[in-house]
């Protein structure tokens, strides 16, 4: 019996830890969708680029040499964020803005189709281009922290082990999330983003440059997900197609959380992480991902507005 409880609690802990990182990943997508109403198929691939950015910052640029193996990875992950944010800003300005925002406001539905297809094209370029540039050899960001764990307990013969690297990942996720929430809710830029999301026309009447707001949201969303990617990279090896593995996780989390709610996206991602880890108790590993799909489809069919959605309806 205690064996079962231990497995259960262990799975739940693992779920919470990975869920925090998934949550951050979903928040990045949620930002983009929430502010711009753009479905970004390439988001998983931006994350992949974030992983590689962190990797190269760590190994080639000298972060490892400078900061060592324990803190080094995390510094490079945090640096990868801004790097990808700049990349995202450029992609938006050059490509995405042509099929979204105020340019397509009059096109009524036509814009959405174009966004889906465009980001699909970008995804293909990034995935396959990544294969060419980075090669197919699995990479990972090694830190000695991933092979040691803290022990919680024993309480009544039950101990729970928290992998140190994953523990720190979760902490970094939470902290980033809190900083982002503060930015969005307190700062002027954050409020302008929310205003532009709520009602682009009225925002223009206020003197807010809505197109610029979109670029910033896209850059921010990309950077955030890149950081989440880097955190995942400390635990799992990755390759140029890794984005595909997480696309469904990201969308499931965002939809679960209620499209348009950033905090909801975080909890949505967290839930997906929990579902994934806890399903290992009953399902074989290969079906874990299938479990996520089932959850995803169920949400879309029975509660498309999600669970943690906004309190107030959008115009």
């Amino acid at each position, binding site marked *: 019996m205690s064996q079962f409880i231990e497995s259960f609690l262990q799975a739940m802990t693992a779920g919470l830890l990975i869920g925090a990182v998934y949550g951050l990943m979903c928040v990045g997508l949620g930002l983009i969708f929430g502010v711009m109403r753009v479905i970004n198929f390439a988001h998983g691939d931006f994350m992949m680029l974030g992983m590689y950015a962190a990797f190269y910052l760590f190994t080639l640029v000298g972060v490892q040499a400078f900061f060592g193996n324990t803190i080094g990875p995390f510094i490079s992950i945090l640096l990868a964020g801004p790097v990808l944010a700049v990349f995202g800003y450029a992609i938006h300005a050059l490509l995405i803005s042509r099929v979204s925002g105020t340019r397509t406001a009059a096109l009524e539905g036509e814009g959405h189709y174009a966004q889906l297809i465009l980001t699909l094209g970008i995804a293909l370029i990034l995935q396959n281009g990544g294969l060419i540039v980075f090669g197919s050899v699995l990479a990972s960001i090694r830190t000695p922290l991933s092979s040691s764990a803290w022990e919680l307990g024993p309480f009544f013969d039950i101990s729970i082990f928290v992998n140190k690297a994953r523990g720190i990942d979760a902490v970094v996720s939470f902290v980033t999330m809190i900083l982002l929430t503060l930015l969005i809710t307190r700062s002027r830029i954050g409020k302008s983003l929310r205003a532009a999301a709520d009602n682009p026309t009225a925002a223009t009447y206020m003197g807010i440059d809505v197109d610029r707001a979109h670029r910033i949201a896209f850059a921010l969303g990309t950077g955030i997900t890149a950081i989440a990617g880097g955190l995942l990279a400390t635990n799992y090896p990755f390759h140029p197609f890794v984005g595909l593995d997480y696309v469904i996780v990201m969308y499931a989390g965002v939809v679960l959380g209620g499209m348009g709610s950033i905090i909801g996206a975080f909890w949505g991602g967290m839930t997906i992480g929990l579902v994934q880890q806890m399903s290992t108790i009953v399902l074989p590993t290969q079906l874990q991902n299938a479990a996520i799909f089932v959850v995803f*489809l169920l949400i879309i069919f029975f509660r498309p507005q999600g669970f943690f959605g906004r309190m107030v309806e959008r115009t």
Partner: protein
Amino acid sequence: MSLLRRPIVSILIFAVIYAAVSLSITNSYYQLIMTLVLVWAVFGLSWNLLSGYTGLISFGHAAFFGIGAYTTALGQIYFDLSPWLLIPIAAMLGGVAGLLVGFPTFRLQGHYFALAMLAYPLAILYVFEWLGFQEVTLPIKRDNPIAYMQFSDPRLYTLLALVMLIGTILLTRAVERSRFGMALLAIKQNQAAAEAAGIDTLAWKLRAISLSGAIAGAIGAFYAVVLLVVTPQSVFGMLVSAQALTVAMFGGVGTVWGPVIGSVILIPLAETLNAEAGTRFPGIQGVIFGIAIVCVILLAPEGLYWKVRDLWRRRQLSQPSSEPEDVPATATVTLLPVPMRRDQPFAQEDVILEVRNLSRSFGGLKAVQNVSFKLHRNEILGIIGPNGAGKTTLFNLLNGFLRPDGGEVLLEGRDVFARKPHELCEAGVARTFQIMRPFQRMSISDNVVVGAYVRSRTDTEARSLAADAIARVGLSSIADRIAGELSTKELRLMELARALAGQPKILLLDETLAGLGHDEADEVVAVIQRLTRDNMTVAIIEHTMQAMVRLVDNFLVLDHGAVLVEGKPETVTRDTRVIEAYLGKKWVAHAAH
């Protein structure tokens, strides 16, 4: 008619040339490319059948493709069945899968539909991996290869693929020109309007996805036979779905030639690059597809075929006209003298529509409150009222877009309360819309015929009803002109014709005169009046009061969702309550001084 013959001829010419080229190639790798071009073209066509025509973008067609592939592979391994039998079975399974997928998923809107479609093949992929089908190889049959579709000469695969392509093209063309295709296009243009025109959109979408799935299943099965190895990633993977989408989108959406063009250009390009540079640049294929998609969506969003055709047309138009006579704009609508308005009241027995206490609220807002009125045969009733009075909501209730909260609606004595739009259309209620979305590239006849399907069994019948309707609005002389070249007045008349083609009893006209100049409005007013001479009843919402007062027999004035007053124009426009509603209480108070 000669135009109709041409596509079939082009198809045959294409087939002959392709076969000739393929027969002359001896290198087996290039031969394989020739075969694959056709496979992806058919797959693209199957995608086109659903997504190109209806506008519902499917990112998950790999689901059907993969099902087909595994049917053949597993069917041959476990049941020792021949692909000659398995391909038709795969088609059936693909069709069934289409129905199973479509039925729940079509309820979803926009993004959610796309995401769900994305999820299906990926979910199936994981299941197949778990089931242990990582790599399935078709067994080689040495003693009876032809019975198992195993040809020693790879050119035979190409020929077989060519046969499948031709079959698919003919099938697609047949659909395109029939009411099936027209219904799908109408759904793509404006689903609400299609419903209002009597088209059962869910039924047609299910037919489309089922046929699409069947074709995808069949070609997936063939693909397995050609490659002899099936892995989950190679038939259920995202790149597979993307490929269907890309060749169709690149070549041209919503046309038979699109996927063929796209496939002929992109596949050899990708494969050759893969072969030449594949070792140094693995993944070059995907990059090419990605760039192709990005370029197409930014530069020619509907695909190469349409872009080229539009450019060609524009060049033709800018050249001196080769038409025998230039039909002057003013002569397009045959004018008849403006009939006199009736001054006698309508007889009581002549009530065609009776509305009693119709209500509808949104949350706390009473959009329509206890509205009652009678519409008499051949009457023209104008529904007016200040902004937000509930006029459009009333129309939406009358034609089924909104469900009333309470009340009664009797059409010729029959209860039609809370019926669906296409049912109401069948019962005889037709509606036009403020924002028109015609098929830009199609003729007036094609645009109008969609409205006739509700009233006709065969396509010939539909065409004749359409021609009739076009004549009634006076557009017969330009029935072949395409919608993109029409003036606003002509477009409005075309909308009217589309509504008439279903032989309705009541016409609900929503801002039919919007955007028309003074004289143009008069012309349209004359057309509407002529219609009511001829067994038609009209209810019209319009803001241009000048035209309305000359058109209508009676006004029904709404304010804040309730009926304020009903009566003749002369009376209503001087009624204190009406003036108050429009100009404010203080105006009346002041005028009294």
